[in-house]
């Protein structure tokens, strides 16, 4: 699952951070950044409702490959600037976090079965 797949699956829009060729290694759905920091996985897709600079900075600390913010929440300009400067793709989705989790799980399962 790459950035283009995430955008398509979650009806999302790439808002900042640019494209990348990385694939999802793990999915973390959380609004508590300390919880996110606890995770040791690589290439994390971070699904969150936290529309703040800290979501991007936390993503950078754990080396996340993409951040998705849900419910079409308005994204602060500074959040987009931080995403651009750190090169972390930031996607805005109209879906709820729960719906996103379901769709991402379905995609990854289908991807696994097609191998």
């Amino acid at each position, binding site marked *: 699952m790459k950035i283009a797949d995430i955008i398509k699956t979650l009806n999302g829009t790439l808002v900042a951070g640019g494209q990348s060729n990385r694939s999802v290694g793990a999915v973390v759905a959380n609004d508590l950044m300390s*919880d996110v920091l606890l995770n040791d996985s690589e290439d994390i897709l971070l699904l969150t409702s936290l529309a703040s600079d*800290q979501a991007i900075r936390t993503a950078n600390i754990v080396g996340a490959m993409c951040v998705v913010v849900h419910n079409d929440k308005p994204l602060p300009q500074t959040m987009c600037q931080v995403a651009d400067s750190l090169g972390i793709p930031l996607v805005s989705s109209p879906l709820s976090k729960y719906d996103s989790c379901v769709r991402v799980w379905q995609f990854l399962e289908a991807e696994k079965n097609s191998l």
Partner: protein
Amino acid sequence: MQHKPTILTGGEERSDDQIIAAHNAKHPNNSSSGKSVSGTDESPLVVMELLQRLRVKDAMRSHNIISVVRTDSMRFAQNLMKRNNISGVPVLEDKRIFGIVSVNDIIKALEGGWIQDQVQKRMATNLVVLEEDMPLAFAIKHFQNYSFGRFPVLDKDRNFVGIVSQRDLTRVLMNELTKELVRLEGKAVKETESSARGDTALPYYSMRQFVVVHNDLQNAGKAANEIKRMMKDAGLDNKLVRRVAVAAYELEINVCIHSLGGSITFILDTDKATVIAKDRGPGIKDVEWACIDGTSTANDWIRSMGFGAGMGLANSKRVSDKFDIQSKIPTGTTVMCEFYLKGKKSE
């Protein structure tokens, strides 16, 4: 008449040499005049380190020294000083210094009517000199202790090799500090490729301090992200980089939301990385309780920003090889996390 100057070097003070020796033993890859930057445990501040690393010979002027000989007249010395706009000249012959003629000596000669005398009769012979291998810190002490504007510099054979003024010290310190600032902006100086990286030690030392402002969540996390970038630039293992970044981030957020403000200091040494979070209060009442997962005093506003889950200290401890916390009410809390560049918890 032969004048033999009394030379006071102050060389009996050993403390600077001892500091340099300890420093060199700790960082054998860094020569005292090399480009690599290193520090001591006693004084990790960049300026202190520079004052110990730089030598008098790095600051002194050794060319185009204006001087007189013993048989020149005081009038000749006066004209020489006037023509060159200087306030003193050394009396030199064959690399040997016999004395100094200053503006004060000229004024006395004019008042006393001996301006036509040879300088050897009227020069100052009770000289205070510096040696070329002394640390710059020593030279600064000399300028503080004596009212002279310059000092002659001798080599180990007591030959005159140059002269150093306060202006020379300022010039060399400004140059070196500029280089340091460039390096501290995240560009850790690496040794040349020929001095290849050893198995257990990285060939550089780097230190940086970040200010953390109370409740400034807009900027919180910048220090940790910068620390991560510095470590990646240094070519360190990704897992280690992540552990250090996690600790730095948690501590930075803690200082931001729980304290009155403070700092994050990051030190990258040859064998370990250290993150120190220090705040100005109010201190933690029960440190043991604060280190337990899930315990928090955060308010709703902090929680709405994604923090305050009470895992900051526990997380920092989890990823560190060595963790220490000291807290005192109301003066503040200091947390130190160490990470060994080779070894424990690198999984």
